[in-house]
């Protein structure tokens, strides 16, 4: 297992990834492990919470859509997928990646799926941050006339 990708990190990355990106990488990589569902893909809601004044007591902000899935590969590895949105295929692919990452194919899966997803996310974020940086205000003080 890599230092960069512990299970928590890859599950988060898979949850945030655009479904189309994961689908493309998954199809290209050609993994098609046999599996059986422990929990077939299911769409539901999660109540998102905030804190009063950002640091105080929790309150309910509103729900978000989430799709989850749990499956077992032929070798017994169990994978879980919890992904944002209503993509059943997204959740299944996330669960399969999660399961494969626990086995001998981890290195290949990481190179074929996780690393490209992480790079794409990093570049999306960097592009936004760079645009935000361009809108940062530089204050200058006007010279006063009286002296």
């Amino acid at each position, binding site marked *: 297992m890599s230092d960069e990708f512990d299970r928590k990190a890859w599950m988060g990355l898979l949850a945030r990834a655009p479904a189309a990106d994961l689908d493309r990488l998954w199809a290209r990589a050609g993994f098609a492990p046999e599996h059986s569902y422990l929990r077939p893909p299911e769409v539901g809601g999660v109540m998102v919470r905030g804190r*009063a004044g*950002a640091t105080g007591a*929790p309150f*309910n*902000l*509103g*729900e978000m859509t989430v799709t989850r899935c749990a499956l077992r590969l032929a070798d017994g590895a169990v994978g879980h997928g919890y992904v944002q949105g209503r993509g059943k295929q997204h959740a299944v692919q996330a669960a399969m990646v999660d399961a494969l990452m626990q086995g001998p194919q981890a290195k290949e899966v990481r190179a074929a799926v996780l690393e490209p997803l992480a790079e794409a996310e990093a570049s999306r974020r960097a592009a936004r941050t760079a645009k*935000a940086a*361009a809108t*940062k205000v530089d204050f200058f003080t006007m010279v006063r006339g009286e002296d």
Partner: protein
Amino acid sequence: MYVAVKGGERAIDNAHAWLAEERRGDPAVTELSVAQIREQLSIAVNRVMAEGSLYDPDLAALAIKQARGDLIEAIFLIRAYRTTLPRFGASLPVDTGAMRCDRRISATFKDAPGGQVLGPTFDYTHRLLDFKLAAEGETPHAPTATPTPGPTPHIMGYLDCEGLIQQEPESDSTPPDLTREPMELPADRALRLQALTRGDEGFILSLAYSTQRGYARNHAFVGELRIGAVAVEMGIPELGFAIEIGEVVLTECETVNQFKGSKTEPPQFTRGYGLVFGQTERKAIAMALVDRALRWKELGEEDQGAPAQDEEFVLMHADNIQATGFLEHIKLPHYVDFQSELELVRKLRREAEGFATQEAAE
């Protein structure tokens, strides 16, 4: 009372078929796609997500299309869909301090660490119609700059260090949920914040404006306004740890309000808080002002009898789906009710006339 009536099925079917045709508009004009709405009418999408209380841009865009741009109708569709979803659980409270900010401004501290970042704002535009948008143009490109590394801490933290601002009591208690249990009054702050964040933007805006004009005056500065993406984490029982299940764009507004102190509280600044799904700046600022006005009791302030201080008035009228449901139901058939009213008025008239004739005869 609403009384069920039979009949009109054909008329209803035909009305809905005509609705579909009108929704499409002139077939010579290209049909609008859901993706176009999601990408190009994103502020409307954000409002539908915030008041529909469900973060899903694709669904909100679909609802806007189906509702022909009637945002309250779209919110209604989202609320109805939301009730069909099984609830997987609740997230950990989001950490807005770790937000990746598109925008972050403060009206109180010019030199806040992290700087004043304007983001994609309507502020400082001239509000002149841009006729270039009426023609198909080139794809615009935003300039970029090298970001300064480092965190963007909450500005309130600085006032907090000096003890000049009221502290938020720390807690990890499970908040009440008005989508699960009927709202009970008096409401705690958690319940009020939930009602406000999903409340009607127009209603919250007007109440906030009323506090600025002197009804429950509490002069507010925007200590900080930030918009950006935050991670949503949830504990997964089958894993035994928490993972990120996605990220949401939020608008957060923290206000700083003058406070002279009371019997229980020293002179200090107090805070109002707004947190809303999406880029929804007007709503978040308004929410913070109304939140602050509703806190008069816990801060030991005087009840000025202002609408924005009246918890029942605010919370029971903030929801536009409840409001429109009750308002619009009066257009549905009330024939039986009205028949009885008609009978009553006729009877009263007969009695009144009889009385008058009797008086004249005497």
